[in-house]
């Protein structure tokens, strides 16, 4: 009987093991190995050990790419926080029927491919786009605003795509917050702002960390947003990696950048755990 049970267990686990092994572990291992190989001029890989690819990252050009990526990701995260808190506080005050409607509105766009949604933004943001047309028809602006093909466009796209990842954990933390704690705070003389800073933020910190991680990490790697809304002018880490593999055909270098990105991500997750976050909360989707 016992033997039979464990056989069934293995049978159920088999697809998962297969999936992890062939689609995650082996490709990553491959990336790790080729990051130590040399490349030739025809996009091939020469199996000779070298650390050249890693030293190449220290070049000022690539350091700049890292810094730009982190800056964009950082700003995206901050803006998402600034939207998620007011939204969560607003929705959590509502009756449960309205709560679910608001949350549905957050989740529904997920059902569409994010690439397609990003194309949608082009229609809105470009020079002859909806926003500029309406504003100039209303004579609010003389010439079209540069809303895309710049950093602004990238950040708009990033915030739009990643906002739900911030809202959901922040909302669930805010919704669970004991209202009497807020009442106690105002009873003790704390103004609205003081309640936010001294009570709401500290009490919902795990949700805030969770959301920040879920926004920050993808924001480093989302190359198509920078390609579409940034006009490819700004090189982000995601773009760098994609270009090395598909355009420059320097796989070993692309691999080394990927490995560095993975290590950075790993440390961010470590930081999150140290701040009291739970790994389970990250796998909510």
């Amino acid at each position, binding site marked *: 009987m016992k033997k039979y049970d464990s056989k069934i267990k293995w049978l159920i686990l088999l697809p998962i093991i297969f999936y992890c092994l062939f689609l995650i572990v082996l490709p990553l291992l491959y990336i790790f190995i080729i990051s130590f190989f040399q490349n030739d001029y025809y996009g091939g890989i020469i199996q000779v050990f070298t650390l050249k690819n890693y030293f190449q990252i220290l070049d000022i050009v690539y350091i700049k790419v890292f810094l730009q990526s982190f800056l964009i990701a950082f700003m995206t995260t901050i803006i998402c926080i600034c939207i998620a808190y007011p939204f969560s506080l607003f929705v959590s005050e509502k009756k449960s029927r309205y709560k679910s409607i608001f949350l549905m509105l957050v989740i529904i766009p997920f059902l569409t491919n994010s690439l397609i949604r990003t194309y949608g933004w082009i229609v809105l943001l470009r020079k002859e786009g909806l926003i500029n047309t309406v504003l100039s028809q209303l004579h609010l602006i003389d010439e079209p605003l540069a809303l895309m093909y710049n950093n602004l466009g990238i950040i708009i796209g990033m915030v739009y795509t990643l906002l739900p990842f911030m809202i959901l954990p922040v909302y669930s933390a805010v919704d669970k917050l*004991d209202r*009497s*704690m807020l*009442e*106690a*705070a*105002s*009873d*003790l*003389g*704390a*103004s609205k702002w*003081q309640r936010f800073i*001294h*009570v709401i933020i*500290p*009490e919902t*910190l795990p949700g805030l960390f969770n959301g920040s991680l879920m926004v920050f990490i993808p924001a480093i790697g989302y190359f198509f947003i920078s390609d579409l809304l940034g006009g490819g002018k700004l090189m982000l880490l995601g773009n760098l990696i994609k270009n090395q593999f598909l355009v420059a055909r320097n796989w070993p270098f692309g691999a080394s950048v990927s490995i560095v990105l993975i290590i950075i991500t790993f440390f961010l997750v470590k930081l999150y755990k140290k701040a009291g976050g739970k790994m389970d909360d990250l796998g909510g989707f």
Partner: protein
Amino acid sequence: MEKVIVRIENMCQSYGKKNVIDDISIDVYEGEFLTILGPSGCGKTTILRAISGLDFIQSGKIMIDGVDVTYLDPTKREVNTIFQNYALFTTMSVEKNINFGLRMKHVGKEEIKKRTEEMLDLVKMGEFRNRKPRELSGGQQQRVAIARALINRPKVLLLDEPLSALDQKLRKQMQLELKNLQKKMGITFIYVTHSQDEALTMSDRIIILNEGKIQQIDTPHHIYSHPKTRFVADFIGDSNIFDGVVESISDEQAIVRVTEDIIFTLPSRGYKVGDNLSIIIRPENFTLEEEKNDKNLPLKIKNHIFDGAATQVIGTLSNRKEIKVELRKGSEDFKNRETVYLNYQTEDLIVLKGDSHEKV
């Protein structure tokens, strides 16, 4: 005349169609321990939230220390609240919880330190200053909540069923601590509870509230001995209530008939024939007798209940009405008898006029 510290005038409050508070006026005197007592859902907490400003009232007026605060934000009112679940800030240490109010008001560092120490001393929580609330017992959390409120030196402290989360023994102990604290600090306490036991032991005055209306405002003694309404008599202490009709009046004596064979004779205070009266007798005011006479009532004994301090006899009258009798110390307990006879002193009877809420 004592100074009025909180005055509520004609307060009304309704949620949806339900009137929670129905035209209530209360004067609270400086330094007193006032308890608002009533069954759950009677509107006690609503009154407290109106005073603290957490809810604004729909009509009426609230004055604190002579100032109209009806439309004043809770942050600007000189009252503080102890919440039922304490509502301590879980991420802050005991010390940070206690001086939260002072920090929000940007009081000087030295002052904050001094007053925090005072409070930690007062509630004997000095050694736990760096603990988080979840690392404290219920009683300790309670103390932190008290210190957190008192550090602001409020004119009035509002307490919303603060002991309901504690176990029986701790509750008794905290009752004493609260009472002592109130005496020591001289701060006005407005205390909300549904426990008559708490109300009777701690209060200077008690307000009995039912369905949004004040039934009686009085000292604990008076409430017990002179309840103004049937509700109060029933709610405070154990009582045996007989509803009867005045059958005849002669020589200033009213004959009140409850049933065929239960009749009370009592001095008439302006009763008329046909008046509905409620006659209330506290369990301790009955005496049990062996022999029947023309006044006492036969009681069929069902049960003896010993609660550690006294013995209660539960029995039924001829109309199957259940009666509670508390035996006096040293009196015969009639353990081996089925029927005894109930007697009472006429002056111990509490008589209320029927449906009206006036005491006669």
